[in-house]
């Protein structure tokens, strides 16, 4: 049964192919086919998961070989999939949250005439993402990696009639290519050093080569992870990616695809175990991104961009945990799962709010929505409690574990994570207060209403999961479950007892909430965004997304533009000048030569005679000399 893991991919892939090739008559039921495919994949995933859980810990990894993909000389890449403890959790997350978002999209995209295409892309995404997490070979993983990039591009730019959406899709695609280059180079490095790209073989052999190779490999993999997971310095695309339909933001740019970088690091954990340098860079990237994302989240008035900043920040937490080595892998995956639930929940909640507010995303135009949209409010509220780490919710367990592990690694990293938790509490409270509490600041023609049940039911399910996913931490279940795939989780000695750390985290979180309440809860909120000149430098920097786009512009875009212009000039003037100039000269010479051809036969005859005389005289001269 477990060797059926390829079917998980095949079902949604078939759904995508069917919907993309079937004509207009499938417009009426295409979305149902897509949802059914995703749900079928989920059911199969659950069956496989239960079967895997029934095995002994050391047997919990099944590799299915579908045949040879590439066979060239000594190199061989197999089309094979591994269903183990790590990928099984991802399968459940992707297909489970994916199916809920399919259901939600039925309502959200109900009035879009290209809905069938949207669902085809969603199925394509599910198939590609499953390929990524099930792959047993880095080349197959790369196939899925590029597949999710393609699906992300297609879905960000789904409303391609908006120039901003088209530009955002292109930006995401190009920035992802930078990361993909890192992953591609990593795969080539594996081939050069190990002669194989099989994930298991590479992770087995990496300990037997010099540390520098492991470091190079780790840094290249991290570059790939940074691109896909919007980590510093490749973070700039994620905020623009919010141009896509909101279910896409929830599924791809919050719950699943952007966490692929974390998956890659955990999946390649032996590489990072072998190189402390690479681990430290991962930690640095995680810490920088978690603070940057939180900073941006504090300043955005666009509800989706505030959530996107938060996503960056939370993935920063996961990266940080993954960089901690064996002590953090399980917690990175744990936070990834809980974040998948509560962030998808909040993104879908934001979509529900937008649905009721005529697609307005500006939180300054919201306010007092808790009465108008009770289901959205309560489910969003649970997501909110989970992300700030309210005791008992899933985020409380997953984030505390990371902060504890970070403190165990180094006090400074721990303090940064703690600060991040406080800022998270601040910006999420701000978002809640601006959206659901306070005065009505609605535009005139807006009549907020609760969304249809096809949209609220997924919200309720996700809210329940956000609340209960913390149960995975009971009795260290998640660490034991992941041990065959991610190695044994060591526990460092902590500088303080765990209960004290938990209390400190709670105090910091409470301080963040209180600060937000003082700033946004007590005072009237302006119905228009204050101009840049009226706000602090802190806010200005956050609104400008910490000048990430400016840096990219100055370092890459403008030099590249100048280089391109110079090349175009060189092509037009030098190369074309040489080629067309030569042709022009020949043409001019021919023009001159053409002039004696007058059409008068007698002048031709004279030329023949003259020529004959010249030849004759020449001969004479030669014979006489």
């Amino acid at each position, binding site marked *: 049964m477990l060797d059926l893991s390829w079917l998980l991919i095949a079902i949604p892939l078939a759904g995508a192919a069917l919907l993309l090739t079937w004509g207009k008559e499938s417009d009426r039921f295409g979305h149902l086919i897509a949802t059914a495919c995703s749900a079928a994949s989920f059911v199969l995933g659950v069956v496989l998961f239960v079967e895997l859980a029934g095995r002994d810990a050391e047997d919990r990894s099944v590799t299915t070989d579908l045949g040879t993909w590439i066979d060239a000389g000594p190199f061989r890449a197999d089309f094979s999939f591994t269903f183990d403890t790590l990928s099984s959790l991802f399968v459940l997350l992707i297909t489970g949250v994916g199916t809920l978002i399919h259901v939600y999209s039925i309502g959200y995209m109900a009035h879009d005439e290209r809905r069938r295409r949207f669902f085809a892309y969603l199925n394509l995404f599910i198939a590609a993402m499953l390929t990524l997490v099930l792959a047993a070979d880095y080349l197959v993983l790369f196939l899925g990696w590029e597949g999710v990039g393609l699906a992300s591009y297609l879905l960000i730019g789904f409303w391609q009639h908006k120039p901003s959406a088209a530009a955002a899709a292109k930006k995401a695609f190009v920035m992802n290519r930078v990361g993909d280059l890192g992953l591609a180079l990593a795969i080539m490095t594996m081939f050069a050093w190990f002669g194989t790209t099989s994930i298991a073989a590479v992770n087995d052999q990496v300990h037997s080569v010099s540390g520098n190779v492991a470091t190079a490999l780790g840094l290249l993999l991290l570059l790939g992870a940074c691109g896909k997971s919007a980590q510093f310095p490749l973070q700039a695309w994620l905020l623009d990616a919010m141009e896509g339909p909101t279910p896409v933001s929830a599924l791809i740019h919050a719950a699943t695809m952007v966490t692929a970088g974390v998956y890659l690091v955990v999946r390649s954990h032996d590489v990072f175990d072998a190189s402390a340098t690479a681990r430290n860079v991962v930690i640095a990237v995680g810490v920088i991104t978690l603070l940057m994302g939180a900073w941006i989240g504090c300043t955005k008035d666009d509800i989706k961009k505030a959530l996107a900043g938060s996503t960056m920040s939370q993935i920063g937490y996961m990266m940080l945990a993954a960089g901690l080595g064996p002590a953090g892998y399980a917690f990175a995956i744990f936070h990834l799962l809980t974040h998948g639930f509560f962030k998808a929940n909040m993104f879908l909640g934001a979509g529900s709010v937008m649905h009721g507010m005529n697609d307005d995303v500006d939180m300054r135009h919201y306010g007092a929505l808790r009465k108008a949209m009770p289901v959205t409010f309560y489910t969003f509220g649970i997501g909110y409690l989970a992300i700030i780490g309210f005791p008992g919710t899933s985020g409380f367990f997953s984030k505390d574990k990371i902060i504890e592990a970070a403190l165990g690694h180094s006090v400074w990293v721990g303090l940064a994570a703690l600060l991040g938790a406080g800022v998270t509490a601040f910006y999420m409270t701000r978002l809640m207060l601006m959206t659901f509490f306070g005065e009505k600041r609605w535009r005139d023609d807006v009549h907020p209403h609760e969304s249809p049940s096809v949209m609220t039911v997924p919200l309720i399910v996700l809210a329940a999961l956000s609340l209960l996913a913390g149960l995975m931490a009971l009795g260290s279940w998640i660490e034991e479950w992941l041990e065959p795939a991610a190695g044994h989780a060591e526990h460092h000695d902590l500088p303080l007892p765990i209960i004290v750390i938990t209390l400190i985290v709670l105090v910091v979180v409470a301080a963040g909430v209180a600060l937000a309440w003082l700033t946004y809860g007590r005072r009237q909120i302006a119905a228009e965004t204050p101009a840049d000149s009226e706000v602090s430098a802190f806010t200005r920097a956050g609104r400008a997304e910490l000048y990430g786009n400016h840096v990219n512009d100055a370092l890459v875009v403008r030099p590249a533009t100048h280089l391109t212009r110079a090349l175009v000039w060189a092509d037009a003037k030098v190369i074309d000048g040489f080629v067309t100039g030569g042709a022009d000269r020949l043409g001019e010479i021919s023009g001159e030569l053409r002039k004696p051809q007058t*059409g008068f*036969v007698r002048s031709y005859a004279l030329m023949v005679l003259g020529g004959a005389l010249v030849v004759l005289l020449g001969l004479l001269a030669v014979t006489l000399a």
Partner: protein
Amino acid sequence: MTEYLTLSMLLFSIGAIGVLVRRNAIIVFMCVELMLNATNLAFVAFARQHGNLDGQVAAFFVMVVAAAEVTIGLAIIVSIYRTRRTTSVDDANLLKA
């Protein structure tokens, strides 16, 4: 011997000048024939001097070529005359740059 060659040279020069200065295509043709026959005379004279038949064989070849050339040339002149009502070579000047 010199006399034959002098006559041949004179006939060739007359023919060449005739080709260059006359406009009537028939006359031009006659001058071309004159040039060909001047060379024939030179061929035969040299054959006599060397005591072998090579020059005479060449003269026969020239006659055959001249006959063929006249046939085609006259046909062209006749067709030009039919369309343009003239035999002047200066009027047949369409092929030019």
